[in-house]
């Protein structure tokens, strides 16, 4: 038989001596797994995207105002919707450029979402600007192919996220129940 108290593992862990320099190097490497440090050139690229986002916001605002009454209502609406998304692109890019860090778990999905909206708006522009000819039809079709591909991709991602969120809620309830039964058990024991 081996007799060991439940906290033996904790006491053993405390006995492990770590070299601070090696620990620091490891922590930097682990941190690098979650975020990418940007070099000066990369930061300037994000500055460029910030300016691009701002320019987009100006163009979409102007297009929304100019197209009001000239185009079908949905065309104007999509241009107007494009403004906050362009500002969000500019905001996100400015934040990345300012901090010099790209969070690998959160930034790429956000950028993908914003790019999807940009594609929707570009397809709208194709639809509005397309000439009434076979060339115009081709422009529309190529735009629609991109739109459908990205929409399927985004939809699959959304469905997966919704499924995970439902599971998370159920697990939260299960955790609360386990916590409650644990507390009841402890109060009965005492």
């Amino acid at each position, binding site marked *: 038989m*081996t007799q060991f108290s439940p906290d033996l593992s904790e006491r053993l862990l405390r006995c*492990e001596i770590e070299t601070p320099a090696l620990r620091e190097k490891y922590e930097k490497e682990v941190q690098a797994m979650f975020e990418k440090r940007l070099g000066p050139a990369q930061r300037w690229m994000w500055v460029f995207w910030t300016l691009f986002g701002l320019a987009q916001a100006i163009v979409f605002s102007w297009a929304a105002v100019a197209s009001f009454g000239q185009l079908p209502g949905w065309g104007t609406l999509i241009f107007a919707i494009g403004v906050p998304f362009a500002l969000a692109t500019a905001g996100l890019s400015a934040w990345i450029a300012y901090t010099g860090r790209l969070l690998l778990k959160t930034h790429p999905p956000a950028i993908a979402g914003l790019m999807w909206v940009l594609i929707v708006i570009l397809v709208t522009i194709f639809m509005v600007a397309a000439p009434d000819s076979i060339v115009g039809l081709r422009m529309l079709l190529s735009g629609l192919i991109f739109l459908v591909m990205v929409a399927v991709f985004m939809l699959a991602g959304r469905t997966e996220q919704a499924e995970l969120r439902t599971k998370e809620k159920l*697990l939260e309830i299960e955790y609360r129940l386990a916590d409650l039964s644990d507390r009841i058990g402890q109060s009965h024991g005492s």
Partner: protein
Amino acid sequence: MNREKESVYWQLLILRCQRGDAAALQEFVRCWEKRLFYYVRRLVDQEADAWDVLQKTWMKVVRDLKALKYSQSLPCWLYTVARNTAIDHQRATHCGPHYQSLQSADIEQPLCTTPEPELALDDAEAVHRALSQLSVDHREVLTLFFLQDLSIKEIAQIVGTSEGTIKSRLHYARHALRRLLQEDK
């Protein structure tokens, strides 16, 4: 935390990691890094190598976390990934005695049937020192046994051997540990 609550907690944390929650992932690493480091440190000679192995372990864990379905097997899975990474690291750097031992064939020693005298483990520092003097096979099973309170079946899964071999290794490892602790006194 009882076993059921702990299991639900890990499931919840894994799910949040799978959803791309960076804070959950950092929490997950924080919760496991000390135990995994302790285990890996018992498998490799140099501390710098242990940190390298741990970092590579996290890279594999983060990459494969999406595919993990059953959190009941989470400790088993994590220790298995760490063990395989340590073996790969040893293979890439050198074929030292540790590597040879971790790769050793599944030789089951006969299990002694005489009852074991009690082994009191009050002095964690003495146990920690004694562990480093054991053979790597004995050290590994005892570390898993002490660290995580894993079952024989789970330890066998991690080490990739039969339950009988683990029982036998644990038996001889306890004997060796007792002898070392007595010498230490």
